[in-house]
């Protein structure tokens, strides 16, 4: 219930939220971020609801103990446990275990981390570490890129689903993070998107474990099957490096969708395919030119990568582009089956690509300026 309220507020833009806050008589500084506004407003709206007993010590805390101390994290709605102690499904739901409390729960989070008191899933999702990234990514999502989302009701509320997006950008895969945040913030039920990425993520120091701890996995059939088999949302960018490293005149032109592996996975598990069109990623680091020489160098280090060209960009800080994400009508691939029609796979992949391209063209036409 609270999630729907937050999702509703997230759908509004910052000016509207500020008007609402002024009307409600909330005094927030001019430096308040969108996250602060949402938090203050949803608190305000909820305290308007009649409650039987006032809560003297803030929101209810988890009743469990770890290492001889009370857990200290806020309890999930209608339970007396936090996410780490089974209050809700931390693996599937993208709800921060620290709630919306923010920095006063960091000591509790750090204690859980130090005691290693909770379990991680086989792919290595660490709910506490991913919580620590939640604030940074939420800031990027709400206040920096100000992502505008359409069609969030197409995201399944439970069960598996394959989210297929167009890849963009040249420096960091911001589009993956924004896709995950869009689902977490705006879907009817905020869920985790388990993204899958190339082996470069496994090879780079620090990235190699942090990307796993935030819930991503390696782009292999086994990993993707596990994610869908457990009923989670899988996020893929089938263009791969070809979509990631392209020149500016190729912006928003979808490349070949791999070998349609994502369609095969969906058919194997019977999960719907939800095409996602993402606008904004191409301008965050504008590409000056592309270099085949650089690609040769990269191939020396990562010989298995099919990288044809590397994009060269200049700005170290991402530009504050206004992003738009549109979730399209889910495509039902029929019941789960083991024998796959190879031609149907390719046709479906092409169909999905055309849908995303059409949506991209439409969104670009109606876009009012880049920022």
């Amino acid at each position, binding site marked *: 219930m609270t999630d729907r309220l937050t999702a509703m507020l997230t759908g509004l833009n910052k000016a509207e939220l500020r008007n609402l806050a002024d009307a409600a008589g909330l005094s927030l500084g001019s430096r308040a971020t969108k996250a602060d506004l949402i938090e203050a407003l949803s608190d305000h709206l909820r305290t308007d609801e009649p409650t039987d007993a006032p809560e003297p010590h803030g929101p209810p805390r988890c009743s469990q103990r770890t290492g001889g101390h009370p857990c200290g994290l806020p309890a999930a709605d209608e339970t007396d446990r936090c996410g780490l102690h089974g209050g809700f499904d931390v693996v599937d739901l993208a709800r921060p275990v620290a709630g919306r409390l923010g920095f006063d729960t960091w000591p509790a989070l750090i204690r859980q981390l*130090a*005691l*290693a008191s909770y*379990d*991680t*899933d*086989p*792919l*290595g999702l*660490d709910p506490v570490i991913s919580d620590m990234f939640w604030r940074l990514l939420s800031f990027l999502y709400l206040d920096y890129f100000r992502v505008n989302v359409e069609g969030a009701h197409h995201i399944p509320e439970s069960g598996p689903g394959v989210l297929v997006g167009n890849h963009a950008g040249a420096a960091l895969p911001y589009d993956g993070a924004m896709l995950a945040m869009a689902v977490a913030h705006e879907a009817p039920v905020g869920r985790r998107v388990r993204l899958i990425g190339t*082996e470069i993520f*496994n*090879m*780079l*120091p*620090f990235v*190699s*474990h942090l990307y*796993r*701890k935030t819930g991503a*996995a*390696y782009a*292999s*059939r*086994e*990993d993707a*099957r*596990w994610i869908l088999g457990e009923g989670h949302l899988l996020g893929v960018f089938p263009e791969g490096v070809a979509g990631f490293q392209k020149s500016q005149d190729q912006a928003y032109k979808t490349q070949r969708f791999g070998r349609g592996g994502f369609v095969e996975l969906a058919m194997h598990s019977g999960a719907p395919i939800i095409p996602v069109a993402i606008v904004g990623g191409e301008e965050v680091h504008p590409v000056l030119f592309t270099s085949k020489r650089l690609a040769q160098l990269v191939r020396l280090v990562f010989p*298995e990568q099919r990288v044809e060209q590397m994009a060269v960009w200049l700005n170290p800080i991402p530009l504050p582009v206004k992003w738009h994400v549109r979730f399209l009508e889910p495509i039902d691939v029929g019941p789960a089956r083991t024998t796959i029609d190879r031609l149907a796979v390719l046709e479906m992949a092409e169909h999905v690509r055309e849908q995303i391209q059409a949506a991209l063209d439409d969104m670009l036409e109606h876009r009012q300026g880049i920022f």
Partner: protein
Amino acid sequence: MERILVTGAASWIGGRCVQTLERDHEVIAVDEFTPRLEFEAPFHRFSLDSLDFAHFLIRAQPTTVLHLQTLDRSAELGSARANEGVVLGGQALFGAIARTPAVRHVVVKSDTAVYSTGPRHASVLDETTRITGRATRYERNLRDIERFVTEVSGELPGVDFTVLRLASIVGSAVGNPLSRYLTLPTVPVMLGFDPRLQFIHEDDAAAALIYACHSPAPGVFNVAGDGILYLSRVLRLGRRIPQPLPSPQLRRARRLLASIGGPRLGQHTANLLRYGRFTQNVRMRTDLGFEPARSTREAVARMYMP
């Protein structure tokens, strides 16, 4: 009452298996070293790669063979000698089994290291996963031995072959390099890498092998405790201080450690401590019917606090 021949009986796991099996069965223990644990069963000192051993096996006419001498013994023997011995020994053993009609059941100890590990390995492996990719020597040996098993089991339809791929064994008694390494007061780890690890407790490893001797279930099974732990969390549970070092310095530190009598990690373990591995143990429960007593987390807790 079966007649069980156990190879690799000198190791801790082998000793535990012989001690348990000799209560109900006639056990013949074979190894080339002095056993670490004491047992009553007759012990024969053979090098597995010798023809004498093959002829001994044919004469002994066992009904069950428990092949444990696939362990990584490079720490004791030096890597070249150890690795050759394992494969040649396996070849001699399976050749002799083919000539011994009494044998009904063969249990082979393998290791999840057979999947090897690296940046291009799937995060979730199961028994049907195609085994590919670069492998260290020990991992190649395991692949060779598993290949022998597939070949021989095709030729001998009357014999059940059970291959147990055990996850990394940890415990306070087993004294293998990984357990000794993780219980060092401060543990050198690779800077910027935090592998997902999966363990099986020493007692569960022995129990699984004994269980497989009793209940013939042909096939290949991953045997591992439930769940995973990141290396950082393993060390936190054991209150050990990680010592992050970049790759070249880490190699030097490990060499230094080995030269002053510390544990000598094989290349496969060094890789494991960089990239990690997780194997699914579903078939262990459904098809083999074995239930480990401890999860990965409990095995680690038990290693640090026996």
